[in-house]
């Protein structure tokens, strides 16, 4: 048999129907559902008199617009409340499991999937959310889809997809001190550009990737879409298997052995070819800070805001000028002189336990800068509970951070956690688009320790040498 990539193997194993000139109809092993992209899909089902084909392969949570203040307080925004109620009603009516506001398992959909063991190697996962690629970190093929496609999955448990091209991003070498998986993916996007992965599924390979923890891999795969990739995947290994073992939805008993035997066949065969390959040298990774309005616009913390007049391509020059105008930054400004107003540690990119630990190490025994308002929003209630068991919450609150309930929060500004116009934020999330964290807000994407240090210093600092 011809050598195949892990991408081909999982794709081939899920083809329900394939016809010339038509997209493949692929079976969805797990359909993850949240409140923002689904009400119209359920409405569509109702109008057509259709049912949910596989409620047992459908799983819902509330994350995007839930408030992160204590759960005992009500959701005050009436429109958010209606959207939350709509998902609760839909789940009840169609027999779908919902980890709702009161659940100890509630959290950001891409955090709780892996955490609960719903994400396993070799699965095909779909969710009405562009960061669904996150689940690829465990060796699953996971696609973000639109609302009409959500309705399609609900009705048929399949999704029609044209086979994307494959791309290998190979990273070799040791990550330099002071850098994190977040810096690695920012560096990859810096290298390939925000459209670099369009039409491709990316497999991340190489010694650097192998050396990452599962949580670190989740951070890398999470931002695949920021480079335009259709999905991102990392071959499962012993670390992956150890991570999945014992989680609530992990295969029990004899089924575990069966699963494991299959999972071990998944990694890409030697000699398999990808449509494209990109090599990344881990030595080029530094603690990055984005200065612009898309995730590829970043510089090492020791660098300066770029000067558009030095750029020849007029379209690129104008894009940089527009970004700098929006961000209110002068060309040539050292990154470490950029003062910030807010800090957000959270999101499906960086709100797992390892992220909070790394941030807490920067914070311990220090105080948030007088000009800064800083918040930590754990990715799930389980992450929150685990962090509290380690007393990380105390480290943060003693320093003056707010410690919140789980949700997407200020990653996208749908709940009351938003930036005010002109406010500048060091954020561990994944998008620095104009207005993403609130109208007129200015977002700088960084790693959790970089965000934490910025909260203390009131500006960006090089965590490799910084002493508060």
């Amino acid at each position, binding site marked *: 048999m011809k050598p195949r990539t892990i991408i081909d193997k999982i794709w081939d194993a899920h083809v329900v129907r394939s016809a010339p000139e038509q997209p493949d109809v692929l079976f969805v092993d797990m359909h993850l559902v949240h409140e923002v992209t689904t009400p119209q899909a359920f409405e569509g089902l109702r109008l057509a008199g259709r049912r949910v084909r596989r409620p047992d392969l459908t799983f819902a949570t509330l994350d995007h617009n839930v408030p992160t203040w204590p759960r005992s307080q009500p959701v005050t925004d009436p429109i958010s409340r209606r959207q939350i109620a709509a998902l609760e009603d839909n789940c009840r009516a169609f027999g779908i499991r919902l980890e709702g506001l009161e659940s100890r398992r509630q959290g950001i959909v891409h955090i709780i999937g892996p955490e609960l063991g719903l994400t396993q190697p070799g699965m095909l996962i779909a969710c009405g959310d562009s960061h669904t690629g996150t689940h690829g970190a465990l060796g699953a093929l996971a696609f973000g889809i639109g609302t009409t496609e959500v309705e399609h999955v609900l009705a048929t448990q399949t999704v*029609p997809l044209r086979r994307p091209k494959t791309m290998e991003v190979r990273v070799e070498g040791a990550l330099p001190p002071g850098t994190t998986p977040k810096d690695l993916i920012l560096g990859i996007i810096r290298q390939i550009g*925000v459209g670099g992965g369009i039409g491709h599924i990316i497999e991340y390979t190489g010694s650097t990737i192998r050396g990452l923890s599962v949580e670190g891999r989740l951070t890398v795969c999470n931002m695949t879409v920021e480079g*335009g990739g259709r999905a991102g995947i990392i071959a499962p290994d012993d670390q992956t298997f150890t991570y999945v073992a014992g989680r609530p939805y992990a295969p029990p008993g004899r089924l575990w052995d069966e699963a494991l035997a299959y999972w071990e066949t998944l990694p890409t065969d030697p000699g398999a070819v990808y449509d494209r390959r990109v090599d990344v040298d881990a030595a080029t990774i530094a603690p990055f800070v984005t200065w612009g309005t898309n995730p590829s616009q970043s510089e090492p913390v020791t660098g300066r805001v770029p000067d558009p007049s030095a750029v020849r391509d007029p379209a690129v020059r104008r894009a940089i000028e527009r970004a700098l105008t929006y961000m209110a930054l002068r060309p040539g400004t050292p990154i470490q002189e950029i003062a910030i107003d807010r800090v957000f540690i959270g999101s499906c990119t960086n709100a797992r336990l390892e992220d909070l630990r790394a941030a807490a190490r920067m914070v311990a025994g220090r105080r948030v800068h007088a000009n800064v308002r800083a918040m930590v929003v754990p990715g799930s209630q389980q992450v929150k509970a685990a962090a509290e068991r380690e007393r990380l919450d105390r480290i943060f609150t003693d320093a003056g951070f707010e410690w919140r309930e789980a949700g997407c929060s200020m990653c996208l500004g749908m709940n009351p956690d938003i930036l005010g116009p002109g406010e500048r934020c060091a954020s561990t999330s994944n998008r620095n688009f104009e207005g993403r964290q609130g109208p007129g807000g200015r977002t700088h994407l960084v790693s959790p320790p970089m965000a934490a240090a910025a909260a203390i210093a009131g500006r960006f600092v090089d965590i490799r040498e910084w002493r508060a």
Partner: protein
Amino acid sequence: MEPFTEHTGVVLPLDRADVDTDLIIPARFLKRTGRTGYGDMLFFTLRFDAGGMPLQDSTFAKPQYRGATVLVAGPNFGCGSSREHAAWALREYGFRAIIAPSFANIFAVNAAQNGVLTVVLPEERVRQMLETAAAREGYQLTVNLEQQTVTDGFGRRDRFEIDPFTKHCLLHGLDAIGLTLQASDDIARFESSRPAWMPRVTT
């Protein structure tokens, strides 16, 4: 779904790359539970100031682009969030076709699901269109899906590529769910052979 065969309309030039779906429709407007009511919020920050007052110098406010139904923009249009609200907002505002050098994958699918055609043309040609639309009042383009062509009033004709299935669905306004349900037997057969270790959820 609304079929797309041929469409002629005034061009609105949006001369920027990487137009993301947060720009097309900000998250704070996504709380509605229906598919309508998004058109007024389209490109909100490009059309309105912080107080919600119309920006007079916005491209969208210029009289020559009033009623525009063809949007021309830079590469990687529709990147970012998967929100189909972006496609609903564009359609409701009046756009039927978007021309750009490239589109983000999820957005292109969402657009097609809502009868909005995404047309990929070479970057140099898109640049010319942007410049013509900026310079010439009432610049119109005709997009013909059957022929896969974009024509202007000056005898210029560009051919574009589109995958045959998307074309077929758009031309006939077909609903993919209906098509897939015709293959219910295939789905049932697939289901019966799925491995037992895969997770299942109970309420």
